[in-house]
């Protein structure tokens, strides 16, 4: 009996040692040579595998960075500049600073402003509803409110506000990974520069219909009245297809446009009300001054004309 146990143990141990030796030799002989830096880079990446960088996961990003040898075109939006600095240090190349982005919701059509014209009772998915028809409110451009964007968010940075029926982005959690932007069938979500001190403004409407129609559909729709366009001194606002849009690169956050919007649909984030008020006061003052100047000029011109007339008469 003892012999059986002894032989079993011995033979199995022998087999084990043999197998270990083979594995060791094979692993030496067929080892895949991989750049060590890939592992190092991967370690500093956030490991969310969200695909926000355009690569299918963090390891692929690490590989791409090492292969490219430059950070000009590759950027991890989740890690941001801090992580990219570490990556640059590992690779011994220059870090490229990029302004952080954040997703914004470009629709303000809450239940209160945008009345439902019909009831949708199909599959609860914005994508499906968008293949069927233009939506359960009059506005064909607005949010469908079934939260496909919330479902794809890996960072729990969004939720649907039950009172408004619109998605809300939690500023601290959003990493600008672009997942919600890609998912939205109405293209309501957009990546927007986070701005200095997280201050930013944007137009929260995409309705391209004529002003009167748009307002019938939604009480806060952009009617394309161009008042904001006229107020902007930096050419940052354009009005195309009855819709105003702010160019974040040109916008200086002077805030003078904000109160020109009669439905207040230029959304301000992290900006105190007093600042808006003072900007508005400043704009009104400037406008007043410009008007007075114009009047004075007009009067002066008239006076000059009269003098001229008198002079000719006398002559």
């Amino acid at each position: 009996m003892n012999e059986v146990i002894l032989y079993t143990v011995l033979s199995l141990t022998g087999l084990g040692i043999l197998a270990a030796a083979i594995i060791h030799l094979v692993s030496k002989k067929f080892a895949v040579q991989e750049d060590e830096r890939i592992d190092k880079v991967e370690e500093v990446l956030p490991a969310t595998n969200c695909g926000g960088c355009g690569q299918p996961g963090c390891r692929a990003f690490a590989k791409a960075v090492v292969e490219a040898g430059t950070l000009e075109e590759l950027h991890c939006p989740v890690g941001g500049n801090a992580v990219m600095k570490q990556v640059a240090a590992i690779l011994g190349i220059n870090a490229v600073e990029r302004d952080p982005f954040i997703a914004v919701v470009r629709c303000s059509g809450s239940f209160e402003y945008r009345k439902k014209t019909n009831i949708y009772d199909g599959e609860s998915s914005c994508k499906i509803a968008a293949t069927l028809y233009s939506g359960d409110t009059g506005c064909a451009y607005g949010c469908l409110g079934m939260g496909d964007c919330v479902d794809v968010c890996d960072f729990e940075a969004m939720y649907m506000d039950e009172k408004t029926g619109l998605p809300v982005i939690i500023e601290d959690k959003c990493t600008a990974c672009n997942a919600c932007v890609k998912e939205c069938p109405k293209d309501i979500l957009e990546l927007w520069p986070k701005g200095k001190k997280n201050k930013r403004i944007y137009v929260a409407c995409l309705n391209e219909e004529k002003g009167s129609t748009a307002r019938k559909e939604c009480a806060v729709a952009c009617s394309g009245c161009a008042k904001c366009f006229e107020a902007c001194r930096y050419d940052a606002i354009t009005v195309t297809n009855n819709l105003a849009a702010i160019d974040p690169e040109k916008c200086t956050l002077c805030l003078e446009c904000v109160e020109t919007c009669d439905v207040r649909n230029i959304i301000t984030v992290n900006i105190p009300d007093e600042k808006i008020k003072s900007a508005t006061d400043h704009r009104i003052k400037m406008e007043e001054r410009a008007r007075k100047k114009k009047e004075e000029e007009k009067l002066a011109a008239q006076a000059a004309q009269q003098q001229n007339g008198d002079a000719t008469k006398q002559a």
Partner: protein
Amino acid sequence: MRLNKHKTFKTGGIHPHDNKLSAQVAITPLPLPKMVTIPIIQHIGAPAKIVVNRGDMVKTGQIIAKHEGFVSSNIHASVSGRVGVIEEVMDSTGFKHMAINIRVKGDDWEESIDRNDALIEEIKLTPKEIVNRIMEAGVVGMGGAAFPSHVKLSVPEGKHVDHLLINGVECEPYLTADHRVMLEKPKEIIVGIKILMKALGVQKAIIGIEDNKADAIEIFQQLLKNEKHIGVEALEVQYPQGGEKQLIQALLNREVPSGGLPADVGVIVHNVGTTFAVYEAVQKNKPLLERVVTVTGKSVKQPSNFLVRIGTPVIDLLIAAGGVPEDTGKIVSGGPMMGKAIADLDVPVAKGTSGILLIPKAEASRSEIYNCVHCGKCIEACPMGLEPYRLLIMSKKGNNKRAKEEHILDCIECGSCSFVCPSNRPILDYIRLGKTQLKKQKNV
């Protein structure tokens, strides 16, 4: 053992209750509306180009939007009056499209249109002229898809067509528009068939009619007694027999290849309503400006078949049929299987609107969705031989490439899979999503 010896298609198929409430109600012309809204895209293909301006006076039958390109269709004024606003309106597809509003004044027809009811049997035009006339008259498939008829009649070179099939199946429950046209205009339809045969140069035509319309079958059998080249065939009731590919399988036992057209197997299919429109276009020079629309539903006071001018708001039809019953949960444009709920009562009747169906609240809402139990009923029901439950998963996961390999684009959207699913899964919804996304990718 089947007692019924009539032909039918063999792949898949389902048997919903047919509920043909308005089958015995004669077609009545609807009084002229006050205002019509005519969308410039009522067909598959490119939208027509508007050729009138606001304020213009138009006559009934005048072209108000011209076809752009070959796969497109002319749009005619269905009434006489003054052109109002030209703007985007919600149509029966659920999306907003450009449409021309016309405020009705009198009923002043174009002089070139023969409004006499007398039957004209002699076909004077050459095949080419026939196709041209049909194109000018803006005739499109009236079974629902609204594919421009002249395109179907222009068989691509290298393809030989030997059969013309006339689709009198009307497999959608509730709808009776085609049935009534067959009962009331059989002689005109036969002339229409002859016109189509001449245009295509085919020697054989078969009218396929489901055997729940025995009266229509009998009429055609009587009228076609002495015709050698035109036959009528009774078909066993089965949905979706009215689908082109299913009808070809049922009548000729030929299978259209995946991604192919009926012309690939030597067949062209036209609906009976279209055939009647072809008769009117060719013999009477009358463009497609009115059609028969069934207004029906279990609690509708007077289920009816109306002859309606294109562009008439749906609400007018509902009022004429006795108003909207209180228990209405959904108003559907088309039949219960493939129709689409409309989101607005001002939606205009288009060339492809075959019926308006009012579904009571109790039947309208969707039931609770459960998990897939892999019972395979959807596979059994699919008339195209697809595996719908798998296509749903692929579409949901966004795996469109795989779905394409599994022939998602062959789906005819008949809804049989969703109809039979014991877990009430939204199968067709997701298949449609996958198809839409694939088409978008193709366009990009």
